[in-house]
């Protein structure tokens, strides 16, 4: 049994549900879990974390004051916070932010790092992650002072393990060279559910044909509380924003349910969604390659099938 750290991704004052799989992975066969939050008030997160086996939540800050605009300072503070409680292994969500912070920590401390992992064995010191866009999986053994691993959202099924929790604050004595500052966060306002954390994704490909037509996918996704994705062709044709692209050069997603509508099933698209639990394909060509690599298929015109599916879901 070891003491393992988990960096928690927060959403205003709550713990994002996507963290629960990471906590489950960290717990393994009964490890002691300390959670780190880059927020002022650790106690606010106690209730959200204790169900998943977290015995202590630590709010990490910097003596330098507000470090929310300084990712290098956040990384340095986290390294100090880990040291303070004698933790050498840290897991987090492989989100844009999680990957960035862990990579900064690894580079600053020359530690072993694996990002976008789909499995971790803390006793063996190994991680499993896709190589070649999901065509293969690599097992990596990490060494160095710290063991840093980011886990793909939804890759690990969450299980609860309630325990008692305490909260504390740690202020790291760290400084920054000021060479990098986040100036602003711009909201585009469009995406409601974060694609990479959605449980259900309905994706449209080339035949969607226009921005407006995406509304039929939105209605279907809404009926399941899901999000809408797009293929690269749909994005490059201007039907959808880049933030919606799934695939090798887009988002990596791993939802419980992925419904591809008018997708041919290209390797580059599958690179981004291959680890989905269940894949459904809707395509009007019975010989489309996607039918050879999905779980359920419907041959038909997406403009008929998708609205019918939405209606069936609402029944």
């Amino acid at each position, binding site marked *: 049994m070891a003491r393992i750290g988990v960096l928690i991704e927060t959403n205003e004052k709550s713990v994002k549900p996507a963290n629960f799989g990471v906590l489950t992975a960290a717990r393994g066969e009964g490890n002691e879990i300390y959670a780190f939050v880059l927020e002022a008030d650790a106690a606010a997160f106690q209730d959200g974390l204790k169900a998943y086996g977290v015995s202590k939540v630590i709010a990490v800050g910097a003596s330098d004051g507000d470090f929310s605009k300084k990712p290098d300072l956040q990384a340095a503070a986290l390294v100090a916070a880990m040291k303070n409680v004698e933790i050498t292994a840290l897991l987090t969500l492989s989100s844009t932010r999680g990957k960035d912070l862990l*990579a900064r920590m690894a580079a600053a401390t020359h530690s072993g790092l694996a990002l976008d992992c789909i499995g971790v064995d803390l006793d063996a010191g*190994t991680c499993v992650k*896709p190589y070649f866009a999901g065509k293969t999986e690599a097992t990596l053994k990490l060494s160095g002072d710290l063991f840093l691993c980011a886990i793909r959202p939804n890759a690990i099924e969450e299980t609860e393990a309630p325990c008692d929790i305490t909260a504390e604050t740690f202020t790291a004595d760290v400084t920054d060279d000021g060479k*990098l500052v986040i100036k602003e966060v711009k909201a*585009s306002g469009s995406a409601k559910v974060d694609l990479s954390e959605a449980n259900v994704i309905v994706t449209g490909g080339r035949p969607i044909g226009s921005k407006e037509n995406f509304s039929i996918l939105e209605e279907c996704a809404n009926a399941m509380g899901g999000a809408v994705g797009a293929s690269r062709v749909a994005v490059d044709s201007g039907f959808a924003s880049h933030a919606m692209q799934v695939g090798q050069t887009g988002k990596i997603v791993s939802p419980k349910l992925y419904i591809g509508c008018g997708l041919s099933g290209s390797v580059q698209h599958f690179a981004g969604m291959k680890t989905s639990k269940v894949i459904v394909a809707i395509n009007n060509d019975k010989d489309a390659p996607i039918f050879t690599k999905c779980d359920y298929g419907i041959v038909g015109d997406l403009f008929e099938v998708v609205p019918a599916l939405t209606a069936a879901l609402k029944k």
Partner: protein
Amino acid sequence: MRVYVCVKHVPDTAANIKVVGGSGFDESVKFIVNPYDEYAIGEASKLVKAEGGEVVIVTLGKASAMTTVRAALAIGGDRGILIKTDKQFVESDETALILAKAIEEDGGADMIFAGKQAADSEGMQTCYRLAANLGMPVATEVIGFSYADGKAIVEREIGGGEREVIEMTAPCVVGATKGLNEVKYPKLPDIMKAKKKPVNEMDAGSLKVDALGLVELVSLEQVPERSNAKMLEGSVTEAVDTLVKLLRDEAKVLD
């Protein structure tokens, strides 16, 4: 400005990958410029066009990676450096030490671009390690870049449709991804010109870096495609009704 672009020689993203010998793969497939690096080359070329200077392509790879150095030079770039190794997978820490050393020995960078990750080993960390080795700030997954008065302003998508705007003091490392620019595919004259551009070749060993060996590739396994999809027949209404029932009762992915 002297702008470096770190480019990797990787298997075509559409290639079939066959694992051989436990942790290697059949390398007799087509190799290409790492797709994310194309955006890096495009942005470096734009910057040098505006500010003056030169674009230097740096590749760590097998001797065969010369094709990728030439292909990169055809997209943009004035000269190349090929650092030769006998491995396809060089661990990120070692790669970053080698790239940093080669760049410093070549004269040092005013700006460094690279792809946010390699399409083969998907490490996503070389940019960070390279920046740390050179004492530079770094940002990756960059989809917007501008430069003025010794500062780079970059934008990155951070999920939920939000974009972060970051200011970095140059020199810095920028990890590019799709959205940064439109890749211009080289025309025949560009390809011919690229063949004549100078490429400095050296062995990785001659740079004498001390890598710690932080990540070891223990094994590589093939991931089989799923097969035997259940095709739902009948009228559209019948098919979707069956699908919803199966998703609820069989796959248990819907409430």
